[in-house]
């Protein structure tokens, strides 16, 4: 080993805690980068393989009813490779030991062989094959797990108004339900929503669809035009009540997964960049100080004939050691966190196997990025070291020159104590360093805002949706549109206090060449249980003529209040009519359109009909109500509001909690690292000054105040900046989830801010204390012996 390397090792030993602080901050950035990039790789490769192996379809459609022979017509569309038709029904389930009903989607299995598209992956038990009904059913894994169902268990389902018992034959996964939740849901609720499969015959018989189908999936030949096929499918299905075909980009499970990957993508670039910049700044500060301290050593090395290259390499090796440490730690941390997050993703996304895949290219990239960060960090200092002419370096550094700080020059100097002025002038003398320190601390504060903003946003949406808009206890949907008098039957159920009718109709809304397919909800003008709310939180009274649509939908369609929308019915009589936009509603999940129920029924031309009802049920008669409800023949599904709400809370709490832990750790590490390093550097730079203060009678506490006073000031400046930055982060990240499917409002609470401030303040205080402990080791006598 060369003597320079020996010096390197000894110097590093002396710098170990500072080098460690830099390496840890760097490791945070790398861990975040490796974690997110590896998650993206894991999710994408797993998804693609799953789609390919299980033949996930490319085009989907629902319809009212078409004879099986139509299937051949569909297969003949140019560009179509495979057609699969079947039946899909919504179902209400009666689970043993669970009073509240669950709802779900039940789909048919082919009469011969297995599914050709959207093939199932068997988890437990066996797949059902063959034509005969055996009273058996397949259950999606998420629902099965949430409700602790195993093969062999029995569940009761209300199918088309008829209650039947089924034995669970197998637990399965489907590429159509990677995200096993009702369409449009942002978070799953596996206890109350599930997916099921059973043989065609049995389902067809139950739904009077024998020899017919009401849903289809298509796969295209490579190179086929998706829009052309969608148009052709819609054309063919028109007479059969087609509800409009759509591709994967509108498929609920697919889009939810894609949105998640998009968010990860943003995180994988933004935050690591921030951390690595902070690490670069810290490396620069540490090395800059080291080289100043070693001026004379550098001069002597040069005088002895060491070349600039050798000296430059020597100092670069410092950063190589730091990068090596940081990378090792970062990879370990990234893998550890990634594995935990994969477990969390398992709650949301169901794959046959989602394993954490360490993206090796990412590790290489990470090493590269952090090396660049470190090299940028040391380059300036090393260049200064190399440039130093030996003779000059032999002389001590000239005394640093100072001047009164700006506030003093403005005439406020008299207000401050002398030690406060010292701090002010020190800050002003190194404005770049001071602002970078402020920047790093502000970032630490800022990243803490994000997870809490998410939590508060979700909380707000839940409260908004379920306290402000929906005030019912349950929503009962009917199998088919029924006469308005059906509402009276619901009113008569035990415990029902209030019942309000709902009429839903699948339509296409068009304005210019923009169109969307969705369901218009018809409600009483001043409904009590489902209130349409505007952006200022007031209820919109539905007008006798005109339509109220989501603000987001108005954006998408490009219409304003007063403008006309063209409506084309997609079911029943397929009426066409136009209505003026009468108001804009504020909502957060999906998009909606509302009309006064009478007006809607008039336009649809099928008489006074309802297809769902909102009910409030007295708590005292809840059980009686549920029993009556489960037995009711007309009810297609029953959704209990509080059940859903509670499910949401649990899953959100879990995922936000984990994110919060990660961000909290990272923020604390940055705050800690920055404050510790700054304190150590100013301790080193100002040893002599501080020792002098001790000699002339300042107590340890007073000297500590001088040492950290500067940092406290910087922290005080950083905190409000951090809150601003954090609010900005939250805004940007929430914007990426501002889609037609899910929107989150930016909710920034005082608690959120207080928490961020507290974490950073505590981390800073602890590290300042640690650094101040070194004051005890100040050599009062030694420091006075020589010039520095």
């Amino acid at each position, binding site marked *: 080993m060369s003597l320079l390397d020996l010096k390197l090792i000894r110097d590093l030993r002396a710098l170990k805690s500072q080098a460690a602080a830099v390496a840890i901050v760097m490791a945070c950035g790398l861990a975040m980068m490796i974690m997110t990039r590896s998650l993206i790789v894991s999710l994408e490769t797993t998804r693609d393989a799953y789609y390919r192996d299980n033949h996930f379809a490319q085009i989907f459609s629902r319809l009212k009813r078409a004879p099986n022979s139509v299937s051949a017509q569909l297969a003949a569309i140019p560009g179509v490779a495979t057609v699969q038709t079947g039946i899909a029904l919504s179902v209400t389930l009666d689970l043993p030991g669970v009073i509240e009903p669950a709802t779900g989607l039940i789909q048919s299995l082919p009469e011969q062989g297995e599914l050709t598209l959207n093939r199932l992956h068997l988890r437990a038990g066996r797949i059902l094959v063959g034509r005969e009904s055996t009273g058996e059913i397949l259950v999606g894994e998420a629902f099965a797990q949430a409700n602790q169902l195993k093969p062999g268990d029995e569940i009761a389902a209300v199918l088309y108004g008829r209650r039947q018992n089924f034995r669970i034959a197998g637990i399965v996964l489907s590429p159509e339900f990677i995200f096993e939740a009702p369409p449009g849901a942002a978070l799953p609720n596996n206890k109350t929503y599930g997916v099921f499969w059973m043989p065609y015959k049995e389902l067809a018989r139950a739904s009077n669809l024998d020899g017919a189908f009401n849903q289809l999936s298509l796969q295209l030949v490579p190179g086929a035009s998706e829009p052309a096929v969608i148009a052709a499918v819609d054309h063919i299905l028109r007479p059969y009540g087609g509800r409009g075909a759509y591709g994967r980009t509108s498929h609920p499970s697919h889009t939810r997964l894609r949105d998640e990957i998009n968010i990860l993508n943003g995180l994988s670039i933004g935050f690591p960049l921030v951390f690595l910049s902070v690490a670069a700044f810290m490396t620069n500060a540490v090395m800059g100080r080291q080289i100043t301290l070693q001026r004379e050593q550098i001069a002597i090395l040069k005088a002895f004939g060491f070349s600039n290259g050798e000296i430059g390499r020597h100092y670069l090796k410092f950063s190589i050691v730091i990068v090596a440490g940081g990378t090792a730690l970062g990879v370990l941390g990234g893998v550890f966190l990634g594995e935990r997050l994969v477990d969390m993703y398992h709650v949301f996304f169901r794959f046959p196997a989602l394993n954490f895949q360490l993206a090796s290219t990412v590790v290489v990239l990470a090493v590269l990025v952090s090396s660049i960060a470190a090299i940028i960090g040391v380059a300036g200092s090393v260049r200064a070291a190399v440039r130093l002419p030996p003779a000059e370096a032999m002389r001590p550094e000239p005394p640093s020159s100072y001047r009164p700080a700006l506030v003093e020059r403005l005439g406020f100097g008299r207000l401050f104590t002398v030690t406060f002025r010292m701090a002010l002038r020190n800050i002003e003398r190194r404005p770049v360093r001071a602002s970078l320190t402020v920047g790093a601390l502000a970032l630490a504060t800022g990243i803490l805002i994000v997870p809490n903003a998410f939590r508060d946003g979700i909380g707000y949406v839940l409260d908004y949706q379920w306290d402000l808009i929906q005030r019912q206890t349950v929503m009962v949907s009917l199998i088919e549109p029924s006469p308005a008098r059906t509402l009276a039957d619901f009113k008569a159920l035990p415990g029902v206090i209030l019942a309000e009718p709902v009429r839903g109709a699948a339509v296409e809304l068009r304005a210019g060449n923009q169109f969307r397919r969705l369901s218009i909800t018809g409600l009483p003008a001043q409904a009590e249980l489902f209130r349409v709310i505007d952006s200022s939180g007031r209820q919109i009274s539905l007008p006798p003529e005109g339509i109220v649509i989501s603000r987001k939908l108005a954006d998408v369609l490009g219409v304003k209040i007063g403008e006309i929308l063209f409506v084309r019915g997609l079911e029943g009589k397929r009426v066409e009519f136009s209505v003026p936009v009468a108001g804009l509603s504020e909502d957060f999940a999906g998009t909606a359109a509302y009309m006064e129920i009478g007006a809607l029924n008039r336009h649809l031309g099928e008489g006074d009909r309802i297809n769902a009802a909102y009910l409030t049920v007295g708590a005292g008669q809840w059980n009686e109500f549920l029993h009556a409800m489960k037995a009711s023949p007309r009810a297609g599904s029953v959704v209990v509001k509080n059940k859903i709400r509670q499910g949401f809370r649990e899953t959100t709490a879990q995922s936000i909690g984990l994110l919060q832990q990660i961000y909290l750790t990272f923020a604390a590490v940055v705050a800690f690292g920055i404050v510790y390093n700054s304190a150590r550097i100013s301790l080193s730079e100002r040893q002599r000054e501080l020792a002098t203060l001790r*000699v002339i*009678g300042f107590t340890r506490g007073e000297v500590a105040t001088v040492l950290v006073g500067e940092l406290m000031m910087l922290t005080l400046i950083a905190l409000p900046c951090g809150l601003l930055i954090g609010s900005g982060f939250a805004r940007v990240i929430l914007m990426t989830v501002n889609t037609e499917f899910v929107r989150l409002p930016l909710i920034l609470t005082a608690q959120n801010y207080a928490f961020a401030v507290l974490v950073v303040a505590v981390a800073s205080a602890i590290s300042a204390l640690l650094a101040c402990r070194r004051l005890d080791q100040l050599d009062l*006598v030694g420091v*006075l012996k020589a010039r520095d």
Partner: protein
Amino acid sequence: MAHAAFTSAESDLAPVFQARALAKTYGEGDAMVRALAGLDLECRAGELVVVLGASGSGKSTLLNLLGGLDTPTSGSLFYRGWDLGGADEAGLTRYRREAVGFVFQFYNLIPSLTARENVALITEIAADPMTPEEALHMVGLGARMDHFPAQLSGGEQQRVAIARAIAKRPAVLMCDEPTGALDVNTGKAVLEAIERINRELGTLTLIITHNSVMAEMADRVLTLSDGHITGEKHNLTRAAASTLAW
């Protein structure tokens, strides 16, 4: 340890410092160095004492013990009857804060503070200080009060250091080679300032030097070698600092 003990000068005749068999050793075993090998010493208020001796003879060690920067290994050391030798960290800090002024070879000013502020640093924490302006006038720097150390010459910086040391009207003034880094004329100006303080404020003053010429301005000259006092000389008349030549 009453607060008054550090500042009152009620018994001018009693010794300010009283040391018996004062010893200080550094290190242990083979590496042990006896910096002070058991010396007896008394100093009285108002005295100006010059300490001479070869390099390594223990001058700085003695000054550090008297100034409360360090504690003796054995022997006793009293300051106006208070056990300075046995004081703890907090006691030493209070002692330095209230009773001692230091002047060092390398000035040790705070670079981020002006001359006035360097002095104010002390006047802010002292019990009965003079104003920074007064202190700076005493060392002849009334005109340069708002300059930063980097804008002052070595001699001027040293005089600021003296002003800082005496602004709290200390009972003792400790000067370790105060002219070591200065040329003759600048050195003289610094010594004049010290002499004036000693005369006008009656401050017990100890000056360490290698320069035997400075012995002439002292009331008493101590010579140290190998940690012992090997010579003690009383001057009947003190030469004025301005008349010294080296």
